[in-house]
């Protein structure tokens, strides 16, 4: 039986090693090499790329990434919680409402990001609409700033908080809420003193599920932030295309990976249950 099982796992292992782990190992190596004259890689081995990261410019990008990801996560949790609460109380129609949340998520991410471009541009729907109604005379710069990026990220990842929050709320023992009411707690108090604290696992799970992709986001800050809202993802992409500084790009990538893995360990310690 074990031999059969090995055959079942071997192909996936091969793909995983050759096309995922090996490439990561390669950029780990590249991060310690030097940029060639025409781009590419040459000797000598050096830690110079990592040292360059300390530059204020790059630290600013790192900081911006954290604050954008953090703001997006917070907003996702704040907006997602009441929605999850609503769905968990929806009785027979729970699955329908849940599906309604997830549906936009599984259509194209690119299209959904573009939709916000369409809405927020100077000549986009919102500005045209407000101008037509006479509220403003010149278009508002709604696009190409941190706010637009946060909006795009929240729109993209909101379902990632709704799902785990809903899962936790659904499993909540209703009799605890009844007990609270029985002991004199008004609805708001029950919410803040009982429901929210008991939802902590879902909140934690949702936070991590949103924060990590937001931290490493590329498409959203690229399209909605223009060149004005540069995050780690944009920096990395830039190093591998325009700037052709592969060692530096690799170093930034590995720092991002390191942050992601630290966050995952923090969560693993708290939970103990993985996706797989």
């Amino acid at each position, binding site marked *: *039986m074990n031999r*059969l*099982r090995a055959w*079942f*796992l071997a*192909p*996936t292992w091969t*793909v*995983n090693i050759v*096309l*995922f*782990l090996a*490439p*990561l190992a*390669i*950029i780990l190596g590249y991060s310690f090499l030097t940029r060639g004259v025409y781009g590419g890689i040459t000797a000598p081995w050096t830690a110079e790329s990592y040292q360059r990261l300390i530059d204020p410019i790059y630290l600013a990008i790192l900081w911006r990434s954290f604050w954008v990801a953090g703001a997006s996560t917070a907003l996702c949790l704040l*907006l997602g919680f*009441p929605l999850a*609460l*609503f769905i968990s*109380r929806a009785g027979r129609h729970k699955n329908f*409402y849940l*599906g*309604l*949340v*997830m*549906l*936009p998520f*599984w*259509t*194209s*991410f*690119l*299209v959904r990001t*573009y*939709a*916000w471009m*369409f809405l927020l541009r100077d*000549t*986009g*729907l919102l500005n*045209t609409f407000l101008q037509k109604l006479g509220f403003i005379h010149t278009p508002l710069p709604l696009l190409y700033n941190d706010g637009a990026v946060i909006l795009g990220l929240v*729109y993209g990842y*909101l379902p990632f908080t709704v799902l785990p929050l809903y899962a936790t709320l659904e499993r909540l023992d209703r009799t605890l809420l009844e007990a609270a009411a029985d002991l004199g707690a008004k*609805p*708001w108090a029950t919410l803040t003193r009982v429901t929210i604290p008991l939802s902590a696992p879902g909140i934690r799970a949702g936070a991590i599920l949103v924060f*990590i992709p937001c931290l*490493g986001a*590329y*498409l959203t800050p690229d*399209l909605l932030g223009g060149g004005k809202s540069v995050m780690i993802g944009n920096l*990395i*992409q830039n190093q*591998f295309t325009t700037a052709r500084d592969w060692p530096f790009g*690799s170093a930034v*990538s590995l720092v991002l990976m390191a942050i*992601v893995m630290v966050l995952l360990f923090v969560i693993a310690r708290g939970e103990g249950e*993985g*996706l*797989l």
Partner: protein
Amino acid sequence: MKPRGTGLAIYAVGAYLFLHLPLLILSIFSFNSSRFTVWEGFSLRWYSAALHDTQLTESALNSLIIAVVATVVSTVLGTLCAYGLWKRNSRPLAGSLYLSLVTPEIVTGISLLAFYQWIFRFLRVQLGMHTVILAHVSFSIAYVVIVVIARLRTVDATLEEAALDLGANEWQAFRYVTLPAILPGVIAAALLAFTVSFDDYVITSLVAGVDSETLPMVIYAIARRGVNPVVNAISALIVIGFGSLVLVSERLRTT
């Protein structure tokens, strides 16, 4: 609880509007006869333009080919892997698959690019459809494994024992007892892998060759230059297409 119930319901309506309006508006304006953001009348000209644009149709075909091949390969590999893990977990493999899911796409993409360029020193190959397909297989497998393993966990483990007891060997037990039970889940996983592959921009843009442009790459290029109503039309088509696939997938996943 009643008053707060209504408040919550109102909020929910707002939230659902937030989630769905942008796409709805986009779809509505894809029928706008004007290229500006003022409604001027119903028209199908942008759909016609989209379907006649060779760059769009060729890239869509590329996306389709890539997605189909990548889906078939990743579904087969992923299903076998899920079955193996269900029998006995392998923490390293499960962990590595999980890692491939949470790694930011930009990192996966550039690492693959670096890997390919390094390989190309030894083999006489270039970036092209095959490099894209391999990349898609790599990131799709984890999705397939997740969906199929979830389905396997609903299967009674003693069924395979009963099959062995009745004279079937290990392969026959999988083929005649377990596989039929998980087939809806496998199809759901395949649909999921398809949508993930078709929609991918970040990784594809980094490892695609000159002649293997995909639809997301073309859309991205157009969108970057400005709001183009043709993109609205394509977007509407994609939303409806994907939406239907996902609905079918969900239905299958839970039968």
